[in-house]
């Protein structure tokens, strides 16, 4: 285990939340009802807040003077370490909600473990996020059940979203040498141990939502190594333009 391993791991945690938080923020002013608009913006705020804490920790560990803003706004798409699922465009409301639920269920179990990380700073950041993700999970799991077990239209859209999203879920449970070294050091969460718990929770909610998990999906991969879909670059160009147009600006 080296500082570089932990730096990479913190980028993964930070980038998942930064990219998903930015996607959710795109709903601001567009959600189907006012309360939902506020909810999406709140969840986005929590995720971007969590991202800034992980990226701040990453920057300090790296020791090259990069803070959370430098890491968020001045890296290229190939340097991002997020899962592909979080960078996909929002689609319709069903797609946004299904994606959020699949991620929340993962994050819930992940942060529950990370709370006990031997890296005290990481453990503290995760403990706070764990409190927040409980609210997110309750919200997204309720929506999945409402839409799936709702009208013909909402059921059709929810099932279509799940069919599209499922092939992006395998990446959550991939591990590489970095994970293995960090898990051995008690720093990272063991996603292999999380996978059955995630499966049980997701299957439970989806069956109550009368939705069917696609069979034999070929799982997509690449985000952790910087191999992204075409969507991330477009998203970043929008997210980063103000900071890049006015570098060093303060307000």
């Amino acid at each position, binding site marked *: 285990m080296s500082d570089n391993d932990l730096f990479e791991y913190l980028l993964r945690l930070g980038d998942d939340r930064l990219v998903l938080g930015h996607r959710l923020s795109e709903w601001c002013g567009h959600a189907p009802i006012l*309360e939902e608009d506020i909810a999406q913006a709140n969840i986005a705020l929590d995720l971007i807040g*969590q991202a800034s804490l992980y990226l701040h920790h990453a920057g300090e560990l790296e020791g090259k003077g990069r803070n959370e803003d430098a890491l968020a706004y001045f890296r290229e798409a190939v340097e991002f370490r997020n899962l592909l699922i979080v960078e996909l465009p929002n689609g319709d409301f069903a797609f946004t909600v299904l994606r959020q639920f699949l991620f929340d269920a993962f994050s*819930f179990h992940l942060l529950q473990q990370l709370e006990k990380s031997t890296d005290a700073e990481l453990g503290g950041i995760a403990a706070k996020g764990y409190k927040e993700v409980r609210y997110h999970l309750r919200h997204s799991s309720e929506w999945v059940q409402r839409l799936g077990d709702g009208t013909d239209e909402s059921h059709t859209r929810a099932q279509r979203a799940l069919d599209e999203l499922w092939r992006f879920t395998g990446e959550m449970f991939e591990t590489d040498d970095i994970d293995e070294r960090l898990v051995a050091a008690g720093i990272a969460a063991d996603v292999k141990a999380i996978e059955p718990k995630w499966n049980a929770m997701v299957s439970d909610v989806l069956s109550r939502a009368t939705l069917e998990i696609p069979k034999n999906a070929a799982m997509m991969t690449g985000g952790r190594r910087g191999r992204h879909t075409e969507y991330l670059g477009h998203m970043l160009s929008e997210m980063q333009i103000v900071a890049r147009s006015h570098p060093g600006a303060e307000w």
Partner: protein
Amino acid sequence: MIESSAPTRDEVFELLTAIKDPELPVVDIVELGIVRDVSIEGDAVRVDVTPTYSGCPALRMIEDEIVEKLKAHGFSDVTVRNVFSPAWTTDWLSRETKQKLKDYGIAPPGTAAVSDGAELITIRRSRETIACPYCGSRNTEQKSEFGSTACKAIHFCNGCHQPFDYFKPF
């Protein structure tokens, strides 16, 4: 040599009670539990603060106010450090602080129970009814678990027909 007139640790805590949370202007940052510790060395002071929610936008403003306040009271070097453990909880709010929230029109939080996964994913969960901070009626309903700030939920009172904020247990 000029004798240092820097305040003591207790006096610093007292000074910080003048700083209110910008989103909850009736409660100060000490009673809210945001200020975790103060350490003084000569005319340098370090204040440990903890965020309420990860993305709380008020924290940056609060940090600036701490620096300004303590520089105005004789400290030449003020640092504000973020600490994350133990995680901030609404259980730290005293009875008096909760009463201040209620008087301001925000229903105070209940106990921050650690709910497990099973409770979080059922749509048929038991929902606590929150007493209206205006008329005291318990005939209220939750409109959204996410409100005007990260720490609040939106409720509605069927008794006096008023929407009100609920400070979420956290």
